[in-house]
C-alpha cells in the first residue's frame, strides 16, 4: 500500500511542476520547422520568462491533436481548411490571421538526374514521382497545381508530410516532387528547384490562431503579434516566405 501512496505523491508533484512552467506550446506545420525555430529564439530573447515549445508536424495531424484536446496554446497551419475545422469546433480564441504566404515549386535531387523540366514530367510513368498525401496541405496544393496545368500525375508515393517527401528527394529515391519554395531553400544545395509557372501556381496562405485551451491567452497573443510584426516578417522572408 505504501508504494501506491508514494506513487500518488510523486504523480502529484510532477503534475504541479507542469503548471509552474511558463511554457507556450506552439503547434506549427512541418514546413515552418526552420522559420519557427528562428522565431522561437527571437521571441524568447524578448520574453525570457516564456519558454516556447514547438510541436511540428503535418497540419492535419496537429489539427487532430487539438480536436482531441491536446493542451496547445497556438496553432499555425499550412492551409485554411485545417484551421477552419478547428474554428468550427470552437477551439480558437479570436479570429485566425494569415501571417505568411508560400508558393509551390518542383523539387528534384541535386543536379536533376532525371532532367525534369516542368509539371508535364509528372505524367511520365518511368519517373518516380512523390506528392504529399491528400488532406495534407502540401498534397492538396500540389494536386490543385497539377489540375490547373491539366496534368494527371503518375504518383509513386503519397508522403505523410512535406519533410518526409523532401527526405526521399534528397536521398535521390524520387525523381521529382512538389513542395513549397521554402522547403527547397531549406536544404540548400542537396535539392534543386524547378519553377512552376505563375499562371498555374498556388499561393498557400498560412493562418495562425490562439486556442481556447491556451494556458495564458495574453502570452499566446503576444507570440502571434510578434510573428506579424516587422521583425517576425523579416524572419519569415529569410526562409523564403512572402508577407501576406
Amino acid at each position, binding site marked *: 500500500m505504501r508504494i501506491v501512496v508514494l506513487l500518488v505523491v510523486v504523480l502529484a508533484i510532477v503534475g504541479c511542476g507542469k503548471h509552474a512552467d511558463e511554457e507556450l506550446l506552439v503547434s506549427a506545420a512541418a514546413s515552418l520547422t526552420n522559420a519557427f525555430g528562428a522565431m522561437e529564439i527571437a521571441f524568447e530573447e524578448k520574453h525570457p520568462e516564456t519558454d516556447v515549445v514547438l510541436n511540428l508536424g*503535418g497540419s492535419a495531424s496537429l489539427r487532430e491533436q487539438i480536436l482531441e484536446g491536446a493542451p496547445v496554446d497556438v496553432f499555425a497551419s499550412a492551409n485554411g481548411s485545417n484551421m477552419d475545422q478547428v474554428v468550427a469546433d470552437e477551439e480558437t480564441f479570436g479570429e485566425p490571421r494569415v501571417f505568411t504566404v508560400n508558393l509551390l515549386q518542383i523539387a528534384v535531387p541535386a543536379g536533376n538526374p532525371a532532367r525534369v523540366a516542368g509539371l508535364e514530367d509528372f505524367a511520365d510513368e518511368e519517373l*518516380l514521382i*512523390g506528392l504529399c*498525401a491528400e488532406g495534407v496541405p502540401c498534397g492538396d496544393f500540389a494536386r490543385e497545381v497539377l489540375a490547373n496545368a491539366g496534368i494527371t500525375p503518375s504518383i*509513386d508515393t503519397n*508522403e*505523410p508530410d512535406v519533410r518526409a517527401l523532401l527526405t526521399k528527394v534528397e536521398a535521390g*529515391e524520387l525523381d521529382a516532387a512538389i513542395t513549397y519554395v521554402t522547403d527547397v531553400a531549406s536544404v540548400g544545395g542537396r535539392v534543386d528547384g524547378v519553377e512552376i509557372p505563375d499562371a498555374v501556381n498556388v499561393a498557400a496562405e498560412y493562418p495562425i490562431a490562439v486556442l481556447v485551451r491556451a494556458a495564458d491567452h495574453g502570452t499566446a497573443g503576444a507570440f502571434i503579434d510578434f510573428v506579424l510584426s516587422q521583425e517576425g516578417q523579416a524572419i519569415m522572408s529569410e526562409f523564403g516566405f512572402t508577407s501576406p
Partner: protein
Amino acid sequence: MTDRRVSQRPPVPILLLGGLGLALFVVPLFGLLWRAPWSDIPGLIGSPIVTEALGLSLVASLSATIISFLFGVPLAWLLARVEFPGRRLVRGLVLLPLVLPPVVGGAALLFALGRRGVIGGPLYELTGLVLPFSIWGVVFATTFVAMPFLVITVEGALRNLDQRYEGAAASLGAGRWTVLRRVTLPMIGPSVTAGLVLTWARAFGEFGATITFAGNLPGRTQTLPLAVFVALESDRAVAVAISLLMVVVSLAVLITLRERWWKFL
C-alpha cells in the same frame, strides 16, 4: 480453523496495480469502440481502398513471416549453438530492430537499399530493380522489423533444449541432418510456431519502416496501418473502421494460438 492456508484471494495492492496495468491496454481500445460508426462499418470495410490494403497487408506480412522462417531459424541456431567471437555483438545487432524506432530502420533501409544506396545503387545498375515504392520494399521493411521476434524465441528454445536427446539420436546412428529434422525441430516446434505468430503480428501492424522505406501508394505499398494513417487525415470513420478490423484480425490470431504461447514463450 487452525491451519492457515494461503489465501486464494490475491493481495489488494497487486490486484490494484495489475488492474491499472491492464487498464493501460484496454482504455485505448475502449476509445476506439466508443468512436466506431457501427452502422456504417460493413460499408466502410468493404470499400476498395480497405480491401486492397488488407490484401497487401496479408501478402506482405505472410511473406515476411516465410522469409523470417527461412533465414531466422538458421540464424537462431547459429546464435544458440556456435561459439564465435563477437557473438554478443551479433545478438545485439539482431535484436536492434526491436528497440529502434521503425522510422530509423526505414531510413537506414532507404540509404542502404534505395536506388542511390550502398547496395541498392549497384543492384539498380545491374538489374534495374528498385526496392522502394514497390511491394518488395514493404516485404523488406516488415521483415526487418519483425524477424527478431522469431530469432529470440527460437534461440531461447534451442538453448533450453536438453542436448542429450540429440546426443542419444546421434549415438543410435542418426546423421546430423536427421537429428535436426527428427529430433531438434520437433522439440522446438511449439516455440517456432509462437515465434512465427509474433513475427506475423508485428509484420501485420508495421507502419514506420514501411512508409519511410516503401512509401505510400494505394494498391502498391499502402498496407492497412498506412491506410489508417491516411484516413485519419481525411475520413476519421474509415480510420476507425480499419483500426477495428486490425484489432479483430490480430486478436483472433493471438487468442487462437494462445495455448502454445502461454506454455512456451
